[in-house]
C-alpha cells in the first residue's frame, strides 16, 4: 500500500532527480510514518472537498436546477448539457474570450509584471519598495466587488483615466464600451499582480547571492544573467505561479460583471459570465456546472503546457 520510493540523497542528486529521503531502507512502518504528515490534509480534503467536487461533476450530466419542476426530480441527462452548449453560438466566443482574458491578464500581465516588480524591488530603495508594495497589495486585498467598482470608476467615459488623458489634451475613448476586453484585462492585472509579485519576491529571496555574484564576475550581462541564471533557478516558482494565477483568473466573475456585465453584446462575456447567466438567471444549474467543467478543461490544457514547457519536476 505505501509506495514511497526511498532513494538516497546522494544517488538522487547524481541522477539529478529532486531531493532524496533520509535513509535507503525499505521498512513498512517507516514508510507509513513518512506518509503520516499527509493524514490531516487527506482527512480535510476527503471530508469537505472530494465528495462535493465529484457530485458537482456528476451534476453537469443532470438537469439539476434550483427551482422549477427539475429541482424536485433531477434526472440524468447524459451529455445533453454539453451538446446544448456546443450548439450555442455564444459558447465558442466565450471560450475564446476566456483564453484571451487568461493570456492577457494572467499569463502575460500578472506574471511578467509581477516578475519585473520583484526584480526591480530587489534593486530599488527600501522606501520605494514599501510604497510600491503597499499600493500593489492594496489593489489585491480590496474586496472584489469594491475593486471592480474602483476599476469601473477608472475606466468609464467620465472616469479617472479620461480625466487624466483630457488634462493632457487627449480625448479618451469610453474604454468599457469600445475596448471592453482591454479594460477588464488591465483591471485584472491591476488587481492580481500582487500575488505574482509576492511569489516571485519569495523565490528570488531564495536565489543565493553568490550565484548571482559569481555570474557577475564572469561578466554576464544583466539580461543574460536574468535569462540564463536567475530564471532557470526559479523555474519551479514560475510554473507554480503560472498555474495558480491561471486557475484563479479562470473563475474571475465579479470584476467583469460589475465593469461591463459581459457586454456590449457578448463582447466580454467569458465562461464564468455565461455560467452565471445559465445557472442563476435561467436557473439551469446542470448547464452552469457543465460550463464550469469546460472551464476546468481550459485550465488543465494551460497547466499541461506549463508543465511540458518548464519541466519543473526535473531539477
Amino acid at each position, binding site marked *: *500500500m*505505501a*509506495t*514511497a520510493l526511498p532513494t538516497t540523497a546522494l544517488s538522487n542528486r547524481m541522477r539529478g532527480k529532486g531531493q532524496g529521503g533520509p535513509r535507503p531502507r525499505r521498512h513498512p512502518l517507516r514508510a507509513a510514518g513518512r*506518509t503520516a504528515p499527509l493524514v490531516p490534509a*487527506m482527512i480535510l480534503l*476527503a*471530508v469537505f472537498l*472530494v*465528495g*462535493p467536487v*465529484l*457530485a458537482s461533476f456528476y451534476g453537469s450530466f443532470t438537469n439539476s*436546477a*434550483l*427551482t*422549477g*419542476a*427539475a*429541482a*424536485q426530480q433531477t434526472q440524468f441527462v447524459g451529455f445533453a448539457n454539453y451538446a446544448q452548449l456546443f450548439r450555442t453560438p455564444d459558447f465558442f466566443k466565450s471560450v475564446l474570450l476566456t483564453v484571451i482574458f487568461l493570456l492577457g491578464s494572467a499569463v502575460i500581465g500578472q506574471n511578467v509584471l509581477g516578475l519585473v516588480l520583484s526584480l526591480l524591488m530587489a534593486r530599488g530603495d527600501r522606501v520605494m519598495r514599501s510604497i510600491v508594495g503597499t499600493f500593489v497589495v492594496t489593489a489585491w486585498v480590496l474586496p472584489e466587488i469594491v475593486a471592480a467598482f474602483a476599476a*469601473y470608476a477608472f475606466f*468609464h*467615459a467620465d472616469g479617472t483615466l479620461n480625466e487624466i488623458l483630457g488634462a493632457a489634451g487627449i480625448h479618451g475613448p*469610453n474604454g*468599457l*464600451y469600445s475596448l471592453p476586453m482591454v479594460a477588464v484585462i488591465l483591471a485584472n492585472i491591476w488587481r492580481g499582480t500582487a500575488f505574482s509579485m509576492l511569489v516571485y519576491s519569495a523565490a528570488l529571496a531564495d536565489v543565493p547571492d553568490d550565484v548571482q555574484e559569481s555570474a557577475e564576475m564572469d561578466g554576464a550581462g544583466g539580461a543574460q544573467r536574468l535569462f540564463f541564471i536567475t530564471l532557470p533557478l526559479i523555474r519551479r516558482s514560475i510554473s507554480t505561479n503560472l498555474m495558480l494565477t491561471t486557475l484563479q483568473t479562470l473563475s474571475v466573475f465579479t470584476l467583469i*460583471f*460589475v*465593469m*461591463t*456585465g*459581459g*457586454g*456590449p*453584446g457578448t463582447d466580454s462575456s467569458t465562461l464564468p459570465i455565461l455560467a452565471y*447567466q445559465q445557472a*442563476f*438567471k*435561467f*436557473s439551469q444549474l446542470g448547464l452552469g456546472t457543465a460550463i464550469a467543467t469546460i472551464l476546468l478543461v481550459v485550465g488543465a490544457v494551460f497547466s499541461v503546457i506549463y508543465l511540458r514547457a518548464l519541466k519543473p519536476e526535473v531539477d
Partner: protein
Amino acid sequence: MKRLALALATGAAAALVLAGCSAPGSVSSSSGTIKVAYQKFGNFTQMDTQMKAVAKQFEAQNKGVKVQLVPIQAAENDYYTKLALMNKAAATAPDVLYEDTFLIKADADAGYLAPLDSYVSKWSDWKQFPDNARQAGQGDDGKIYGVSLGTDTRGLWYNKTLLQKAGIAVPWQPKTWDDVLDAARKIKAAEPGVIPLNVYSGKPQGEASTMQGFEMLLYGTADQLTDSDGKWVAGSKGFTDALQFVQTVYQDKLGPTPQQALDVNVGTEISGQWIPQGKLAIDLDGSWQSQNWISSGAAPWKDWSTTMGWTAMPTQNGQAPGKVSMSGGWTLALGSKSKNKEAAWNFIKLALNKKNSLNFDILDTQIPVRTDVANDPKYTSSNPTNAFFSSLVPVTHFRPATSDYPKVSNAIQVAMESVMTGQQSPAQAAKAYDDALKQAVGPDNIVKK
C-alpha cells in the same frame, strides 16, 4: 496509498449521497418554533423592521411558539439562491418565506411551497385582495401559493422645469406614444445639453430593460408576450412597433447615447445624478424612484417633490384604457416542509392584516394591494406620489411568470440592443426574437400571429 485515497474518496462520496438523501433534522424547527426567511439588503431594511415587529406581536399572542427570524443579506439572485438551498433541505427549510411573485410558479413546481387555498378561504380579510393581486400568488395549477404584501407600478417621471422651458405645459399628460416623442423632440430642440427621454434598453440593464422599457411599450399595443391560453406570441405587430419606438428614441438621439444606455451602472446614474442635476427630462421608470431621494435614500434630494412630476405611460394610440403599467411585487408564502403549518399561517395572517400591511406599504413606498389600505388616508398622504401610482393598479399587467420567462426576457434585451445600436431594423430584430423564442420555449408553446 493510491488505493487508500480512492477508498477515502469513495467513502466520502457515499457519505455525501447518504447525507443528501436523508438529512437528519437536528437543526429543524421544533414544533414550538417557526422560521421566517426574508431579504435584508442594503437600505432595504424595511422588511427586517416589519418582521421584527410582527414577530413580537405574534409571540405575545401565541404563547409557546417562538419565531426565529432569518434575514438573508443579499441582492436578488443571491437571495433566491440561498432561499432555494434552504428550501431543498428539510432541516433548514423556512416555515414562512418572503417570496417574489415572479418565482411563485417555479418554486411551487419545485415543491418548496404549500398551497394556501384552504387557509385563505377561511380568512375574512381575503376579500380585501382584488383579483389581479390574488393571481399574482397563483401557481401553474391554479392554487394560491403566496399572499401579496404590496406591489409596484411604472410610469413617466418628468422634470417640470425642463418641460416648461421647452414650452410644454405642466402637468403634462401625454395621450399617445407620439405625444411622448413630440415632447422629447421639443426638449431636444430647446435644450441641447439635456437628455430628453430615457427608456431602459439592452442587456446590461437586464430586467429593467424588459420591464420598465419594452413591456411598458408592448402592453400598450394590441399585443402581449403571451396570448390568453398562456402560449408565447411570435411575429406580432405590437412587438415590432415597440422595437420601432426604441429605435426612434435612440437613433433620433432623443435618449441617452447607446454607449451611456449600455453602461451597466446607468440606473444609479439616472436616479443619483441625471435626474437631480436636471440632465434628464423624462424617465420611464418605477414607482419606487422617490425612495432614492428621500432623506434616508441613496441620493437624498430635497426638492424632488416640487421639481418632479409624474404621469401614466399612454397606450400606443391612446386606445382604451388609455394608460399602461407593469407590476411585480412580493408575497409571503408557506414552506411545504414546515412542521407547524398552522402557526406559520397565523404568522402570515398577522403580518398581512390591515394595520401591518399599511405600516409596511408606507415604510417601503409599496403600492398596496389591499383595497382598505390603498384607500387609507394615512397611506395616500405619506408620499405625494402614492395616490398616483396606486391609481395605476387597475390598468397594470403582470409578467408571464413561467420558468422560461428569464430566457425570453434575455431575447427581448438582445432585440432591443441590436435595434438601439442600429445593427438591425425593428423587423429584423423581431424576426431574430422569434427564432430565439423557439429555442427558449420550444415550438409547441408558440402561436404565430
